């Protein structure tokens, strides 16, 4: 597994970020993050303390961050011939964002109206969700984790998208502020 390679840039950048996080610590000690094992720097784990004065207060939530680049989308025309669309490629972080997923799934008020069994279908069928939220399987959907190119929801502005200037720390802070509450007004799937 460790042989997954990964570009040198990504590795260096991740190491720097990790170093910074460990040396300075997160603001207010709101979270901790780092690679799960030293051998694989492309899978991180973050422990997030539930923000105060929210339903999550007192909880510690585990999220997994995976630094894997997206498969190229768009299958070419002669439908019979596939490209190897789903092979995992070494991360091109920080060009592409990482993925973040709460494990076990976190029940954010935004996501509670969809129970997991219905989930797969609802994602496909319902009008696209609006803004930061947590899917019922735990995947975090927040605009700064979307590249400017793909706009799954058509609602987000390009300015709040992923850019290499962002970092793990900033994204997690955004997620925390999301948990802390501004986004409750947009119920999922409505």
């Amino acid at each position, binding site marked *: 597994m460790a042989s997954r390679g990964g570009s040198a840039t990504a590795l260096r950048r991740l190491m720097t970020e990790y170093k910074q996080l460990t040396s300075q610590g997160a603001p207010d000690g709101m979270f901790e993050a780092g690679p799960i094992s030293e051998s694989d720097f492309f899978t991180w784990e973050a422990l997030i303390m539930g923000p105060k004065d929210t339903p999550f207060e007192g909880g510690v939530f585990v999220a997994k961050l995976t630094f894997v680049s997206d498969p190229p989308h768009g*299958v*070419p025309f*002669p439908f019979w011939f*596939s490209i190897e669309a789903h092979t995992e490629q070494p991360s091109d972080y920080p060009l592409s964002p990482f993925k973040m997923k709460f494990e076990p799934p976190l029940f954010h008020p935004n996501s509670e109206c969809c129970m997991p*069994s219905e989930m797969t279908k609802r994602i496909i*069928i319902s009008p696209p969700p609006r803004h930061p939220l947590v899917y019922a399987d735990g995947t975090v959907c927040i605009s700064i984790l979307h590249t400017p190119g793909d706009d799954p929801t058509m609602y987000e502005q390009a300015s709040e998208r992923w*850019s290499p200037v962002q970092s793990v720390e900033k994204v997690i802070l955004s997620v925390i502020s999301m948990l802390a509450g501004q986004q409750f007004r947009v119920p999922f799937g409505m």
Partner: protein
Amino acid sequence: MQEEQDTCRICSAPAEPDQPLFYPCKCSGTIRYIHQDCLTTWLAHSKKKTCDVCKHPYSFTKVYSEDMPSRLPLLLLLRRFAQQAAVALVFLLRASIVGLIWLAFLPWATIWTWRMYFTMGDSTAWWLSNRPRPANSLLHNDAHAHQNVTGSNGTANTLFSHPMVRAVSADIVAGQIIATVIVVAFVAVFLLREWISQNARPGVFDDAEAPPEERDEAAPAPAGDHVQDLHEEAIAPRQDAQRWRRRAREARGLPVPAVDHVQDIRAFREEAIALRREAQRLHQRAREAREMPVPVPPADGLLPQNGHVPEGMDIWSRTANSESSGGEDEGGDSERKAKHILKEKGKHAVASGTDAGSSAIYRAPEELEAGSSNLSGYFRQDSPDDASAADLIEDEDYVYFRDVEPFSTHESPTEVAPNAEDTEVEMPGLQQWTDDEFEEPEDGDNIAVVFDGPADGPVEPNDADDQLPLGNDRGRDRPEQQQDMNVVVDLNDNDDMEGGMDEDMEGALEAIGLRGPIHAVLQNVDPVVDSFMFLIARLVVPPLSRLGLLGIAFFTRLLSIVIGSGNATKSILFSATLYNRTIETASGAWNYVFIILISPTAAPSEPASSFIDSVLAHDSAFMRVVDPLFAPIGEAVRLLWKDLLVTWERLALGDGTTEKLFAISLGYMVDILLVALYLNVLTVGSMKSAGRAVRSAVRQQLVVVKVAAFIVVELVVFPLGCGVMLDVCTVSLFPQGSFRSRTAFLMYAPLTTAFYHWVIGTMFMYQFAVLLAGFRSCLRPGALWFIKDPQDQNFHPIRDILERPTLVHIRKLIFSAFMYGLVVACGVATVSGMLRIFSRTIMPFRWKIREPLSTVPIDLLFLHLILPYTLRYFRPKKIVKQAGVHVWKFLAMQLRLSSYLFGGRYSTEEYSLKKWTLRTLISTNLDDTEVLHDGTFRRVPNSDNVALLKDELATVEVDAEGVPVNDIEDRLMQRQNQEAEKAKRSIKDDYTITYMPPRFKYRVITFMVAIWMVCSIFLASSLAIPIIFGRFFFKLFVPYHVHDGYSFIAGFYLLWGCWLLNMVVERMDKHRQRRGGGEPRADLPLYFAKRSLLWLAKASYMTFFLGFVIPTLIAVVVELYIVMPFRQTFYPDMPPRIRIVDMWALGLLYTKIALQGPRVRPVGRITIAGLLAMILLPAGVLWLVQRLVHLRVDQHFLFMHIYPSIFTFTACTQVTFGLAGVIKSWSQTVRDKEFLVEMRLQNLDPEPEREQDRRGELWEVETVKDENEDD
């Protein structure tokens, strides 16, 4: 913070000797610096040109190598040019080849496939009919047709008029049409499917095959639980599927490195062939084995019922018979899964399913060798409870089948081949297979996965093809199905591609062969051709149907022969007592009866004829009585029958369009019948699970067909019907209109007629919807609760179609058809009737389409110049709506309906007068002695999408406070509330209380009649008044009658102008009064005259120059410089004449085009003087020269030489300048290519002097700090 060194904002590495850090944008702090490489990577990745934080555009400078000459050498340029030309040539060549392949070869192949099938069908038909075939068959037809058309003069023409070339090109065009139709049809079907699945409630569309009663059939409770679990597990864990797929890929990655596949493939193929032989041997054994025990039904997939033998079959078909293996595969797979579930209940279905699957497939062949009994033991030991296992399998079946069905043809090859390899290689095939089944068919991604196999080893499809013929008959109807679905899914990708951007464009280019390796074209064309072939094979239906047709004809003939012979014997027997003719006619009648009796049952006719004999023999007296009665009937019936037979045969054997259409539709009908039979009849007993498997696929298709049918009905048939109704209602308005002429036109041009009617109907329906929406907006919400609001967001027409039973929907459709018919009949017919009756002056319409108003294309100018502005400024909606609301309110008040229609309470309406006197009519304050408080209160819906009870009243009688008046009403109200709560709606918002006057029904009807009358009068007058005015207007100027269209337009503008004038006067009056301080103002008429004269002067000045002079001059210039020379060249005899009116019209159009089109440079600088100079200067110069030099020139010289040469000269100069620019930029690109070393990022140097003011203090502080640090 301070001691930290600067790092790149992307890779967070510090500056290095060869990688300095730049600060190219306005960002500061930790994100100020960046490596050039990182930045270029990011820019390429994100396709941006600016900083994503501060939006500052990055700037680069070009750095050329030092040995670059200041002027590029000519040789270099030429070399580059040659290179580029060569590249372009190659590309052109390639493009033409690709074009040839896709646009010529593909259609050509298509048309020949098409013909092949038709010819096949025809030949079979002729063979069956046992008749000599006419000489001009389909194949020769075209050649003959094209040979006639030869008109050749010139060498090129002879080439193109060669019959061969003509035939081929005609073929290609026809093929293109067919191919286009196929593609369009399937794209349409696919989009429809997608739309349905998007709109359907979860489970309605994709879970169509999970009806609850089937689940109940799985009687034992534990089994039911398993099903439940399995079902959920099958849907939910996408990630698991993902994980397994990943693992599968890794597994595949292990044994065979991706690059050198060729060797493996070869070995692979050999092994596969060996395996096939082996499989055939096994097949033999299996067959032997099968023949030993009790006869086994053909459904191989039903393992549990039939014990061990089908297991053998199953394995065999899995390996050898890829085509028909669908059913067996499912059977086998479900069996595996069921087995597994029994074995380890707690474990995860997906994961272990794959394990069990691989082991089962692995062990099976070996054990088959050992003997089938062994195998059965193996199987039995794993499934302790046969019955529950069976149930499990059955229920599992559909879950699996639904998802994998479309791919099974393709999976089989992937699965067949890996069998030959070692374990690692086989694993991926299976795992991939199993995780595919958890993906929805809509999901485009899984195609990629499914086709991984063929991409890795291109041999496998061949194998699959080879094995095709081995498929047994049962599989025959399935490949078609699968092919169908396949293509649908394929188009999915196509669609995705279109949705995307550049990358997808590139992919498309690669796919059609303009990029990438050239042989890929062939690789890509091949499957397309194949699929087209299959699709046309879907049209095997026509030949098949012909077969069927002829089969039936054949059968009837046999029948008639048999019966005929019976007749003969009879006539011999009874010739003594009965006269011939009677018998013949009678038996003709009997024939008729018997054909009816016999043909459905297809019973042998022997007993029938004996029955005839007995009847005829015993009841001769009866016959004698009946005979005269029967004689004419029998004769008629016999003639009819003969006619029918002849028609039938003509239809069966004929070659025209009608016959083909008939054959095709009959074929589809037969298909539908078979499908229906299959769905409803053959689902008993052992056929059950196989039937269910197919059903799930077919049912989904049927849903699509159903939706499509309803959509067609609503979008095509409805408007068409409306249009026809409208036509019928208004036919009397037109002078030449009569039903006969309409019918004649229909016969002459049926499609055009249908299209006209459809367009008119659509427009009418749209207008009606708008009108209804207008009504709705006038009323309180919920007043029209019984009509669905199409603008409602919760209204999903598609869900309606999907969820309601078809019959209900059809009933609804019929109801709305009736409603529309009523509306048309009442609304339009009355209007036209009114026009006829009340306004004899305007009837009949003057409808002369072929009589233009003048030679100047006024219609065109009107359409282009005036109509757009009219549409922009003529907004009658507001006024009409205001007037409409007034009318409504007035009517409602008179009928005491205000409370119901507009909500609220109106005390003046809640009583009726006891006695009508003058005072009661005037006064509103009446006391109780004079009035009678009557009427009731009801709770009524207050929202258009209220949840209603089916087949019950929607309103409840209550008192003024909302309490139900009696128990029945109370219960009804309770039920309504429950329903509302069930639909999660608030009762308070959904219902309101309104006053209902007595005889509410009649009042509503009166109200509607009144409204309708008002509308009719309004419509009729809005049509008639402008026409009358227009006619009057035209009578002043034109001696003859003009088309009423012109009259209408003229009248309309007259009226509108009057209206505007009125508005203007009013506004002026207000203006005048407002401006007036204390001093006396001019009288209104005086003021008005002054103002309007001023305005008129301005307007006429503008109109004259902008609307007349400039357009005319422009047109004259164009005429002189461009048009005239050409005209004089081609028609030298034509006198050079310029008509000013024409010029004006043309000039207007030119101006319009120039203003609409891309900005042409000179447009902005046109002056009257310039134009005049362009016209007059050359002529003047020529005139002067002639005066001075006495030049003798032709009178056409000016037009033929001077203007055109000026034009040519100018054009040449412009083109030269343009070319020079092009060459310059091209040489710049050459320079860049040859000598550019790098693009160096430019730092954004602070410019304190200029920036300070703008950036403010912050910037100042920072620069100061920077300076300090520098110090």
